[in-house]
């Protein structure tokens, strides 16, 4: 190691950067971390694309009368939201807590609200990337979305909020390893039971009405409805709003930063 005989000017000039710059800096760091992490890419990109191609090409499940891709594509969009906002965010945040990253960030001018805002921006940026790739593949497979896709936006945003709340609830209370296990398990269960690729109509009516209350079912059902010409997805939006309020409220009360 060589000290170059050059010392920076350490004279104090303290000050916080403007909030948007801090949030962008942190969000950028989080997006880079996600895109460089192999497991995260598997979860957020590769698995959804494989399921999209597999289930729309091969007659694995009975999706009723319409084109197979028209059923599968909205489910995969919902899965993409869940994988990033819930599973990825829960695991990443759990390990940030374990490694003292959240504690260290707490000692910087970036406030906790700013950190959560940065995480939200990062999640939305990764989701935007997922949506572009998934839609491109789905369109190439012959997907023809109908109706008014504008209603997909509040569904996606509210779905992101609900799954973020669930992810932060896990990450803020469980140990990092337990968060990792629970987040993956819940991902698999919701993938199976939430109408992502297996239609909920296959379940008995009593079970189905319970499953309809899951956030993933609300998101898949809502997206399928608005992307095939359905009207305002009031029911799904209400379900997602309830999940958002409950999970974010609980996470705000229980989250431990260290």
């Amino acid at each position, binding site marked *: 190691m060589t000290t170059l005989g050059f010392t920076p000017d350490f004279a104090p000039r303290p000050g916080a950067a403007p909030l948007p710059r801090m949030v962008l800096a942190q969000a950028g760091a989080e997006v880079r971390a996600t895109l460089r992490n192999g497991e995260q890419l598997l979860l957020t990109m590769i698995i959804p694309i494989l399921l999209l191609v597999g289930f729309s090409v091969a007659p694995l499940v009975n999706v009723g009368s319409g084109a197979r891709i028209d059923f599968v594509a909205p489910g995969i969009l919902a899965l993409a939201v869940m994988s990033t906002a819930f599973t990825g965010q829960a695991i990443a945040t759990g390990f940030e807590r374990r490694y003292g990253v959240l504690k260290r960030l707490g000692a910087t*001018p970036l406030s906790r609200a700013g950190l959560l805002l940065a995480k939200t921006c990062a999640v939305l940026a990764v989701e935007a990337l997922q949506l572009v790739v998934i839609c491109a593949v789905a369109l190439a497979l012959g997907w023809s979305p109908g109706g008014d896709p504008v209603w997909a936006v509040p569904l996606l945003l509210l779905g992101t909020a609900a799954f973020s709340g669930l992810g932060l609830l896990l990450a803020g209370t469980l140990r990092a390893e337990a968060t990792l296990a629970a987040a993956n398990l819940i991902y698999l269960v919701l993938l199976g039971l939430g109408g992502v690729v297996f239609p909920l109509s296959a379940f008995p009516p009593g079970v189905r009405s319970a499953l309809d209350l899951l956030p993933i079912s609300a998101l898949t059902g809502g997206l399928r409805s608005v992307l095939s010409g359905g009207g305002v997805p009031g029911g799904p939006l209400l379900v997602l709003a309830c999940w958002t309020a409950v999970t974010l409220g609980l996470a705000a009360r229980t989250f431990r930063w260290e």
Partner: protein
Amino acid sequence: MRAVEDDTSGDPADAPAVEIRDLVKRYGRTTAVDGLSLTCARREVTAILGPNGAGKTSTLEICEGFRRPDGGTVRVLGLEPHDRALRPRVGIMLQAGGVPPAARAGEWLRTVARFHSAPLDPGALLRLLGLTEHARTPYRRLSGGQQQRLSLAAAVIGRPELVFLDEPTAGLDPQARHACWDVITALRDAGVSVVLTTHQMDEAEKLSDRVVVIDHGRVVADGTPQSLTGAERQLRFRARPGLDLDELLAALPPGSAAKESPSGHYIIEGLVGPQLLATVTAWCATEGVAAEDLRIERRTLEDVFLELTGRELR
């Protein structure tokens, strides 16, 4: 001419870097900090010394706003430690961790820099701390010493008024330790207040304006390194092991002490002056001993530390 404010006690601009009164911190039944009081002046380097478990890190983490005290008051730059107004003004270096393991050293430092309004150039700081070649290395692949240096860089990048460094040189090789000392000295010269913990006595002795020794959660000594090592002097020499010191002691003035520790190293304590020196050399002559490395010196900080905190392992 403006009138001089007659009450400056509440003016944070004049407040000490750190002011701690009767601080208490408990973890369950363990009292980690037990009525500790100390004041760290601005623009000085204060070293907090103490054995493992003495309460150093707890005290520092309360000052950093990470932990709440169970009793007493703490003011940092005149403010409550968890006051968010302190965050840009205070730089911290944790004992370990705090960085995402996959984050690249340079990118992480640039991210932290962007939280500040007038940060130092991350590249210059990496260069200063010998990390330029590792700028693209993920944190987890850095050696322990490199991780420490990155952490130090992040503590100072925002040009803070005060930095808390928790064992900044633990695990560093000599080159890295000297680079770290250079940074701390440069900070002090630039008017930054530095509060650090350390186990290394030479570090405290060389670097700090002030040394606070704490043990069992209390301050047991507080002063400049010179005042702590004090006026007491020792005469030391090396000779063949196993000399009989009884005769020497009889010849020395009352109140003197002589011991062999370790084997072959002799230490004479007491009123060390020309008379004592003459007595010792005369005794050496009659014993036929050629005393090597004969010297008079002050006690080291380590001697003081061991006297104050005992020799048992913690």
